[in-house]
């Protein structure tokens, strides 16, 4: 049985670190793991995605439409953009955060006001996480990615691992306290 996880967001939101920690944990849990992230021009504020697949034996790293068992959207509109990738009955975790893309900033396009409602009325298993404000409350909004990691680990039923140690291993010591708290906050959601 192979599970497929899709992380989507905006360049600079920390999707890559999240996927690194998650993949390291999946390897420790004894799974075969393939992770794929395409970067390049999209780092400059564009839409980004990371694909993680794990199970007994994984061949392709690619996830197609309707194939993700779980999806974490680090930004609301990105959840809508990538929604077709989630399989029906899959779990959607969405960060209650808006990042305006340039076409919205220059008033060529509108940022939709009803994204969360639309997602909630369409997807059966959806969890809205105020990761940015939780992380702000803990000291720095940038730790939102680790809040989301905690929420994802929880949703995947993978809490039986020392994720705190993995978070520490992937971050410099000065960020340990903040991010361990962020992880705990996510795990308890």
């Amino acid at each position: 049985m192979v599970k497929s996880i899709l992380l989507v967001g905006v360049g600079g939101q920390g999707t890559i670190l999240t996927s690194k920690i998650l993949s390291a944990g999946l390897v420790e849990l004894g799974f075969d793991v393939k992770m794929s992230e395409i970067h390049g021009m999209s780092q400059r504020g564009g839409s980004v995605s990371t694909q993680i697949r794990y199970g007994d034996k994984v061949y392709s790293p690619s996830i197609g439409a309707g194939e993700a068992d779980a999806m974490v959207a680090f930004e609301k509109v990105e959840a809508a953009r990538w929604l077709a990738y989630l399989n029906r009955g899959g779990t959607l975790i969405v960060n209650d955060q808006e990042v305006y893309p340039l076409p919205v900033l220059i008033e060529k396009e509108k940022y939709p006001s009803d994204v969360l409602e639309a997602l909630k009325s369409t997807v059966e298993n959806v969890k809205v996480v105020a990761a940015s404000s939780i992380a702000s409350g803990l000291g720095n909004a940038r730790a939102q990615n680790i809040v989301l990691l905690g929420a994802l680990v929880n949703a995947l039923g993978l809490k039986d691992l020392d994720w705190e140690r993995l978070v520490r291993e992937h971050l410099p010591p000065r960020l340990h306290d903040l991010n361990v708290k962020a992880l705990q906050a996510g795990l308890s959601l």
Partner: protein
Amino acid sequence: MKSLMTGNEALARGAWEAGCLVAAAYPGTPSTEILENLATYPEVYSEWSTNEKVALEVAAGAAIMGARSLAAMKHVGLNVAADPFFTMAYTGVNGGLVVISADDPGCHSSQNEQDNRNYAPFAKVAMLEPSDSQECKDFVIEAFELSERFDTPVLVRVTTRICHSKGIVELGERREAGVREYKKDVKKYVVVPAHARERHVVVEERLRSLREYSNASPLNRIEWADRGTGIIASGITYQHAREVFGDGASYLKLGFTHPLPDQTIERFAAGVDRLYVIEENDPYMETFVKSLGIDCIGKESIPACNELSPQIIRKSLLSDEPGPLYSVDTAVPARPPVLCAGCPHRGFFYAISKYKDVVAAGDIGCYTLGMAPPIGVTDSVICMGASISGAIGMAKAAERAGRKIKVFGLIGDSTFFHSGITGLIDAVYNRGNIAVAILDNRVTAMTGHQENPGTGVTLMGEVTTQVDIEGIVEAAGIKAGNIRIIDPYNLAETEKAVKEAYNSTEPFAIISRRECALLKDVQRRKRGYCVVVSDKCKKCKACMRPGCPAIAFKDGEVVIDASSCNGCTLCLQLCKFNAIVKVGE
């Protein structure tokens, strides 16, 4: 020991384990991290070369001298390095020479989808194609062995999905290969016509030996299962095919893909009822299979454009579409990549955007985004270096048509070193009436902040001579009076220089110099950010014209996001009402 590695990390690891001593590259997505990782192994001399041709020649020189050497590049980089690549096939090597080409099906970060497998038969060299991270490591080691055994450069061809995917890799130890003895051998290494003609005979003989070896190579293996369907695949498409067909098909998994194994293919085809050849982009294997008189299904069903995926293969070969998908009615705004907040290119682009009769030939780098709205300055982007040389041709043609336009060539610092200098000399020599702007942000930014000849530091972290751009511009023959060095954060100075360039009737150069706003040092030194004083703001939105992603019009107010503002003050300089101030300095 096992480790989760990207293909690029594993390629570097393989080179290290194989005893590689010299490695060179020019950064280019998706290949950049190969050399970044090699540079972490102190036994390997690693360098960012000026361009891919230089990189391959550095590696070739080291191989002639007897060291195992490697050159890595993105697919279009091999076009630049094609000259030494073809002739190294004639000279052969001494120490092993491995060339890695990282292709980009799907154009994730490239200007085309060229399939560099075609280079292997064209240059008559051996080629290997790994299909995951473990094979990346193993195949590079094998490539060094084959290079020395058959006295040939070996091409290792990977794709974005291999380079940037992670898989579990079993690590090995480094096996020192040393530096082989060097003996002067002009008949081998000096390709005057008399020698080259003899070497060509050697190349053809070697191809025959390689073809024989390809049939015996463990890198080409048959996996028998259900014989109703047979699949020939290499690289990432093998993994996609396994995902789709599982044990419901037999596979000929090809890792040694030039020369292709004719006998193995014949044996496999004879053992299956229906044969698919699954490959991205060109029908490289399919054409060969058909040349053997074997019937197969390939490009008539499988798209030649874009990356493949299990889903596309399922759809193309099995007419299997995904079931009903989730969708919402909400209109989703596009999110294109943009120049960052505080990007020094923005001020320069803004200054030039006021001239409606300017045609701008752009180049490869972050500033390619100068084509995007709301700036929309750039008219063309072709390849590394084509800005300056393309501008010369545009200006000559426009002159002949009597068109009253001014042509600018816009190029970054690293791209200027890569292949802009020759164009600049051409402009001077042939009296091209163009303005050249070197957008010098002191780093190779687009690929993730690599060092370059202008930064004064090497890939290995050594302090070195900073190559002087203005010195090169002047030495190329641009008159001292026609050179301006400006700070693009100073809008008045930038506009003045652009105006002078616009009015000049001689080759003119502007060096627009300001460090990339995202450089770690710049971020550490960062002081202050801009804020809107709301009672002074007339909501004219002049500040928003250059398209800074830190400025938004929200709920009827212009607001600047303090956390993303890098304090460049371009918006402040555009505000006629003094409604923007910089704080926190």
